[in-house]
């Protein structure tokens, strides 16, 4: 056997790509089929767009979409800003501090949401300790509880991405700029930001795509109205009518469409960063 024949060929990726195409493609096709076949599990019939019409005329759907985008944008923006600040502070704080900052990473979102309810629900621990200040962020219609849980979970992830991009070379350029008289804000804007921007933007897009579709945190700490998009779909599946399943599938496809748009933006950014 020659050495050249050992070189990994692109076909090695085929089984993995095929598995994902079948499972992921099948999932999207299944949702699309369900959305145009309200009675698909009973009998197949000619595709109908009733579920899509129902969805587009349902004020609760639009409210869910607005609410989901609102907390996604808010939580992502706050997490990105805090990650940048935390990364700046951690650079001088040592490896132990970075490990501490990364500690929430493996904790499932659901566990963090459970802790948030214990602390932040009316009559929760924060309420009891602060006394007169009534906290109302669990089940609040502004989605503050959802944002808080996501910020706690996503800041460590984004911070690590920023720190990975904040290389010793960047620090050296920072020092050079400082010697030349640049203040801390000017250094951040002209030296650090151009170096970490790609990592932070890509990470933020990944976070935003995840938040758009996640279900468990809004279920535990979110309000009963408006609901998150996935929650809207879940509730539609729980109606007695078969059409509810089709409406749910249509709503989920809207979420998948939004995530795909973010993925395309991500693809462009990764391509540019890789070039």
């Amino acid at each position, binding site marked *: 056997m020659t050495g050249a024949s050992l070189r990994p060929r692109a076909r090695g*990726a085929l089984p993995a790509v095929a598995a994902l195409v079948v499972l992921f493609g099948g999932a999207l096709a299944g949702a699309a089929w369900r959305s145009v076949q309200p009675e698909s599990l009973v009998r197949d019939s000619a595709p109908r767009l009733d579920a899509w019409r129902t969805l587009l005329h349902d004020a609760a759907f639009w409210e869910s979409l607005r609410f989901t985008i609102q907390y996604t944008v808010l939580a992502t923006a706050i997490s990105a800003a805090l990650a940048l600040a935390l990364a700046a502070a951690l650079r001088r704080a040592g490896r132990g501090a970075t490990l501490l900052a990364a500690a929430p990473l493996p904790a499932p979102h659901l566990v963090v949401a459970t802790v948030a309810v214990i602390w932040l629900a009316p009559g929760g621990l924060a309420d009891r300790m602060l006394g007169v200040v009534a906290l109302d962020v669990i089940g609040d219609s502004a989605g503050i509880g959802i944002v808080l849980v996501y910020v706690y979970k996503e800041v460590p992830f984004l911070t690590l991405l920023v720190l990975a991009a904040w290389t010793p070379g960047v620090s050296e350029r920072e020092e050079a700029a400082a010697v030349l008289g640049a203040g801390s804000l000017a250094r951040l804007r002209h030296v650090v930001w151009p170096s970490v921007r790609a990592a932070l933007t890509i990470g933020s897009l990944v976070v935003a795509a995840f938040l758009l579709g996640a279900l468990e945190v809004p279920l535990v700490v979110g309000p009963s109205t408006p609901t998150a998009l996935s929650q809207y779909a879940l509730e539609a599946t729980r109606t007695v009518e078969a059409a509810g399943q089709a409406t749910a599938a249509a709503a989920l496809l809207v979420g998948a469409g939004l995530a795909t748009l973010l993925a395309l933006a991500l693809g462009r950014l990764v391509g540019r960063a890789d070039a």
Partner: protein
Amino acid sequence: MRERRHARRLLIAMLAIAAVLPVLTLLVRALADVWRAPAVLPQELGLRGVRYVLSDGAGVVEAVVNGALIALLATAGALALGWPAARALAAAPRRVRHVLVLAIAMPLLVPQYAIGAGLAEWFIRLGVTDTVLAVALAHLIYTLPYVVVVLAGAFSRELIELEEAAATVGAGPLQRLALVSLPASRTALATAAMMALIVSWSQYGTTLAIGGETTTLAVMLVPFAQSDPQIAATLAILFLAPTLIALAAVARTLRT
């Protein structure tokens, strides 16, 4: 200088609180049989949550076993498919690699409940929904991308050259795998496996859509989170423990 030291101490204290407080909260809440507002400390400690978890009717043990089996299957499948994919990815030209990574990672960006609901459409028709295998197959969508990306980092040009050297001295494919490839990528393999286990274990949306009676801890925990904080906290500790153990195992592998 002194100010900077104070700021560093303050930062570390805040990070330590953020890291430890949630775990401490869950432990105390799980052991508080009576903790009515406005009391800041529990009025009565007890094991009601633990008794519930261990009781026959609750199905918690079954949910833990289901979750563990699903995670193991989804991880084994991801490693089997991910290993050759990662090798191919590491050797591919930059542009091909870029497209492949995006294609493989795409499912991570789409709502999990959407994937679960779409797959349920086919699984119901095939009569395989509501089984450990069906949920594990669905979880493969999330475990595979992590495994491929982590393993791709381990397949360097040096490793391929080592394999080639082993081949020239007569080592067969299995010997090369056992004596060269696996030992050389041990750390990456452990990291990939642990990440896949955590990802599958933490899954909620897809499991909810496909699992039916095949429930896991994540699905079981949600209804309790607002209705019974003591049982929720006990379940949350059970839910969190394997992820911390997996992290510690990865940290240990990285050190050795």
